[in-house]
């Protein structure tokens, strides 16, 4: 292994990263997950932790780009250079760039996540059979609305499991169209467009308007690539047109004719000689996970290794069951030392099907029809959550708080809602990451600011402040004036306007939300102000003007006159049967 001159490394172990853009090749959730796993390669063997930021400047800023993409190191079209990253430091240092003229997959061919349908977001299964025919790509057969779909098992006729494939008719990503699907035709600079276009851009990304008139509404999004789309060339995103003629000869499949590099290509119109529109045919693609893990090695301070099996070897090689080579381990531990102690992150639900942030999601919309022999099913927009998670069996919630009149119960990345007004039916589980992206699965405390409706979350020694979906943080709790030695904040009680009492162990502090600082005269001992409640409460919250102190499955309710008037089961608050 090699390190950069002067052993360049981060001077802190809590590294932050931010994903600035996505590739049209993969669903955002698959990209997010690939990056999470790539960081985990390094955090598994060092004391480093990686936290995702959704705005602001992170240590490692991740983006996709093509050719000249804003630094002095342009990419070179399909194949050749795949990505690059900069060693630790300020500015562009630490950043990782991925060449979007590559076909990004998980390394073994198209990884097509489905939407809606009845497969709960499973990947397409290729090939699959449908009405006696085998399909190796998404198809519009059996539908009249042009929406491509696929089966998620080998035989649609037998299992009936299906979902819709990425297409601009289903959703867009990035941009400002909130993930809405394209509206065709749309008007851009007075001209009408009936398909996605690269007009008006010099980076080659295909976009569309999400209303009928871009000039008027300025709403747009980028078009996801269909699985049949060509890569690179001058027709990125368009499907091959078969048959097509090239140098007077007719081709019914991809060919390497006319090229010295043997790469397969096709025309995207019926006549290459006349239109010169072409692109490379989809292949196995490059594993975003493997390339990202390599690039993050650079971003952490490793140079290329000359060991051929090491992750930091400069050439790409697909490995199905990846494990970090000893050379890489020695290299990264030379910089940051070995991992010590147990993993601080508790087990949490699998992230492999985590949804992208909400702005990238398809809108809540049911496709008009389903494949011809399929019964109508309820569309699933949100990430499927394991329905077996029963809140009425949770023996200790991470946090409980009232938000907009409803009690919210948090546990391991999920939350449930209940109310003692109107419909008392319990709602959930919901995923915390859907509503408040950036938060860790394990929370200690949450509360809603009484003046601004901002949401405050505490986990360990960090806290986050949400205004809607916008987040500030994570910041360290000592920034609020809490002691550096404090391990976590376990509860919160809003008092009056703009004050919150924060609880930890047997002490509490008064936080002024306006100044974001702890008031003088704190900490105080719980016993003095709140007698007759347990000293080891792990959840403290305000609900219906009463104070609640929880220990395991029990709560102590205290009135505003500081009298404990009831002790009960937490499940009662959750409206459990």
């Amino acid at each position, binding site marked *: 292994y090699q390190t*950069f*001159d002067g052993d360049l490394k981060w001077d802190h172990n809590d590294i932050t990263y931010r994903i600035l853009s996505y590739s049209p090749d993969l669903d955002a959730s698959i990209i997010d997950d690939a990056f999470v796993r790539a960081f985990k390669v390094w955090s598994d063997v060092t004391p480093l932790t990686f936290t995702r930021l959704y705005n602001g400047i992170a240590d490692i800023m991740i983006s996709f780009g093509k*050719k000249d993409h804003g630094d002095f*190191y342009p*990419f*070179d*079209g*399909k*194949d*050749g*250079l*795949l*990505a*690059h*990253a900069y060693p630790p430091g300020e500015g562009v240092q630490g950043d990782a760039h991925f*060449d979007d*003229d*590559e076909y990004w997959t998980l390394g073994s061919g198209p990884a097509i996540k489905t939407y809606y349908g009845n497969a709960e977001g499973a990947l397409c299964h290729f090939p699959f059979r449908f009405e006696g025919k085998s399909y190796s790509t998404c198809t519009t057969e059996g539908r009249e609305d042009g929406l491509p779909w696929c089966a998620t098992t080998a035989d649609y006729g037998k299992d009936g499991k299906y979902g819709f494939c990425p297409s601009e008719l289903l959703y867009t990503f990035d941009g400002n169209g909130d993930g809405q699907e394209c509206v065709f035709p749309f008007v851009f600079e007075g001209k009408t467009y009936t398909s996605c276009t690269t007009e008006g851009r010099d980076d080659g990304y295909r976009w569309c308007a999400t209303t009928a008139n871009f000039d008027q509404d300025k709403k747009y999004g980028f078009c996801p690539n269909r699985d049949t789309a060509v890569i*690179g*060339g*001058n027709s990125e995103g368009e499907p091959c047109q078969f048959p097509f003629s090239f*140098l007077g000869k007719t081709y019914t499949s991809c060919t390497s*004719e*006319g*090229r*010295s*590099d043997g790469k397969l*290509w096709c025309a995207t119109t019926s006549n290459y000689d006349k239109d*010169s529109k*072409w692109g490379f045919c989809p292949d196995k693609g*490059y594993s975003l996970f493997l*390339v990202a893990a*390599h*690039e993050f090695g*650079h971003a952490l301070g490793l*140079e*290329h290794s*000359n*060991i*051929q099996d090491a992750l930091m070897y*400069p*050439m*790409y090689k697909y490995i199905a069951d990846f494990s970090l080579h000893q050379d890489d381990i020695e290299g990264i531990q030379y910089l940051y030392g070995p991992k010590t102690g147990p993993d601080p992150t508790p087990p949490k639900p699998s992230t492999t099907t985590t949804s992208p942030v909400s702005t990238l999601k398809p809108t809540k919309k049911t496709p008009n029809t389903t494949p011809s022999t399929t019964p109508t099913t309820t569309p699933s927009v949100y990430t499927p959550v394991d329905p077996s998670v029963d809140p009425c069996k949770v023996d200790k919630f991470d946090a409980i708080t009232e938000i907009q009149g409803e009690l919210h119960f948090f546990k391991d990345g999920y939350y449930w809602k209940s109310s003692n007004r109107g419909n008392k039916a319990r709602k959930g589980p919901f995923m915390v990451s859907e509503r408040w992206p950036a938060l860790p699965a394990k929370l200690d405390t949450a509360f809603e600011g009484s003046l601004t409706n901002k949401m405050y979350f505490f986990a360990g020694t960090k806290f986050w402040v949400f205004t809607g979906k916008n987040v500030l943080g994570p910041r360290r709790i000592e920034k609020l004036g809490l002691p550096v030695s404090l391990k976590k904040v376990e509860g919160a009680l809003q008092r009056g306007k703009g004050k919150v009492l924060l609880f930890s162990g047997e002490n509490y502090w008064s936080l002024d939300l306006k100044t974001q600082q702890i008031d003088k005269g704190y900490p105080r001992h719980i016993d003095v102000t709140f007698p007759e409640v347990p000293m080891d409460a792990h959840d403290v919250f305000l609900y219906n003007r009463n104070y609640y102190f929880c220990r395991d499955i029990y709560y102590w309710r205290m009135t505003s006159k500081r009298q404990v008037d009831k002790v009960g089961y937490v499940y009662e608050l959750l409206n459990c049967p």
Partner: protein
Amino acid sequence: WCHPIKTIFVTFPGDVIKNMTDFELAESYLKRFGYMEILDKSGQQGALSTSKALRRLQNQLGLKETGKLDQPTIDAIKTPRCGVPDVRN
């Protein structure tokens, strides 16, 4: 009818990778990834001969050091890779 068909190579519009000979490709590779130009002990920038640069490349990539543009080296430089230079001056 059994005459070999003459292959015609086409310049595809928008194709960044041009048809290059193996030698041209190797030269551009050696320059791009830092093998050609090095700093000597006095800090002066000097250019290595292609043969020496090839040896450095072969050493770095774990190939047999022949100093020649042999097939394993050609295969290596045609393999997709990371854009970070191998040799930093």
